[in-house]
């Protein structure tokens, strides 16, 4: 049984009632489906994150133009001198 409440809280989600049960069952079905991977012998195999031909490009330390206020405010109102506003952070 997965601790769905713990996972939810890590993901900042809060499921309730029927939806919670449905999703819990879905998750269990999907996670047990993953068991098939245990059949594969991966001893000594390096994990793969990047596929071919990637190499890290290094950007020059030169200032670029910032985003202007108007474009930011198209998506969120800014407050005071130009702050984003959120509900109080508890415990600070």
């Amino acid at each position, binding site marked *: 049984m*997965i601790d*769905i409440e*713990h*996972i*939810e809280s*890590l*993901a*900042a*989600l*809060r*499921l309730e009632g029927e*939806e919670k049960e*449905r*999703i819990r069952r*879905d*998750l269990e*079905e*999907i*996670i047990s*489906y*993953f068991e*098939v*991977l*245990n*059949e*594969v012998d*991966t001893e000594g*195999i*390096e*994990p*793969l*994150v*990047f*596929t*071919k*031909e*990637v*190499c*890290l*490009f290094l*950007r020059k330390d030169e200032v670029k133009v910032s*985003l202007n206020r108007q*474009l*930011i405010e*198209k*998506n*969120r109102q800014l407050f005071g001198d130009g702050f*984003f506003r*959120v*509900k*109080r*952070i*508890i415990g600070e």
Partner: protein
Amino acid sequence: MEITKLGIKEISHLIKKKEVSAKEVVSSYLDEIHNKDSLVKAFLSVNEDEALRIAEQLDNENNKTGLLFGVPFAIKDNINVFGFETTAGSKILKGYIAPYDATVVKKIRNHGGIIIGKTNPDEFAMGSSTENSAFFPTKNPINHDYVPGGSSGGSAASVSGGFVPGSLGSDTGGSIRQPAAFCNVVGLKPTYGRVSRYGLIAFGSSLDCIGPITKNVEDAAIMLNVIAGFDENDETTAIMKVPDYTERLKDGVKNVKIGVLKEIKDFDIESSVLNALNKAVSKLIDLGAEIVEVSIPHLKYALPTYYIIAPSEASANLSRFDGVRYGLEGEGLNLRDFYENTRTEGFGREVKRRILIGTFALSEGYYDAYYLKASRVRRLIEQDFEKAFSVVESILLPTTPTLPFKFGEKKSPLEMYMSDIFTIPVSLAGLPAISVPFGETHNGFRAGMQFIGKWFDEIQLFQYSNALFEEG
């Protein structure tokens, strides 16, 4: 001449020759959208005025250059287009106005392309039918009772429905190829790193690819010429020259070794698709290809591998949707409530499922057994393909195991995931692949045939798939 039946190459050609104006072209397509999209619902937003304005501008230009000059395009709504609402098919981004252009959009504009609208996706590109869009499902233009596929269902439908000659979609586990197959059009997933992801709302960062959906193979090659290339804004793009992808379109498959999968018998495939596959193989032999059986022994582990890795990456990629800087603002007396309400209300069920799976797979105590394990199996799959490609130039597979299904037909998430069994392994290995429609129609639908190519070998891919496409 019906403008809306033409392809990208022809349209651009006619406009440059001044046989037709960009404005006429855009207007014709807008008419189609007005007449038919209310039934298909491929688009989430259409910007008529802007499109016509740009068309006029182009018509007034004396120097008509650019591979896409005057051609209208539709862009999947998980790609940022400056000034357009960009929702990724989600409530949580309703109202988000993109303050920048994705690199691919810039490139299309630089070549004279005109963005006419944004198309409907499965929410955050998670899905195989576009039923997961938070707004409405898109219908398959061939038969409205059937899904167009997903997650680039809107993009595929927009081309198939005659609303644009070309569109951009994104492919993480098959999201360009599968809807292209379902809508009987051509869809290309380029090699991972061939096209910049800057501006694509991330789902599975190590898997996501932007690619073209078009009416024919040549148009897809032209679009790749435009959008491919190293981008300073994307560290995962390859520092590799962009060749002319249309160079070998007519070179055929004579003496080319094409692989067919040994393990295909292990999979449940609809007879109509299997028939189409067999016909395709015969046709390729007729055309001079040599068919070789190849083995991808770890193929059957691709699905669980993908459904661990993609959701894991997604769970982190979607953490930025917290209501603070853009998108949906939930209720809440305190910060924690605010976060949870915004996200619980803003995300649909499939997205929530995947976020939870991903969070689980990365969590303490499970990371090794799930995420890390899947990453190792991923390497084995990549190695399988490397081995196969030492013997053949391309591998032929059906794009999907079935023809399109009806709305509501797939009851469980796992059932839906099965749609992607032949597309997912390709994504895990970062390989390029193209889907072309082929064979008889059943219920109006033809099967999609998938050619898989070697890394960065799209030229060959276009060459071989075009041979089959032109026979189709």
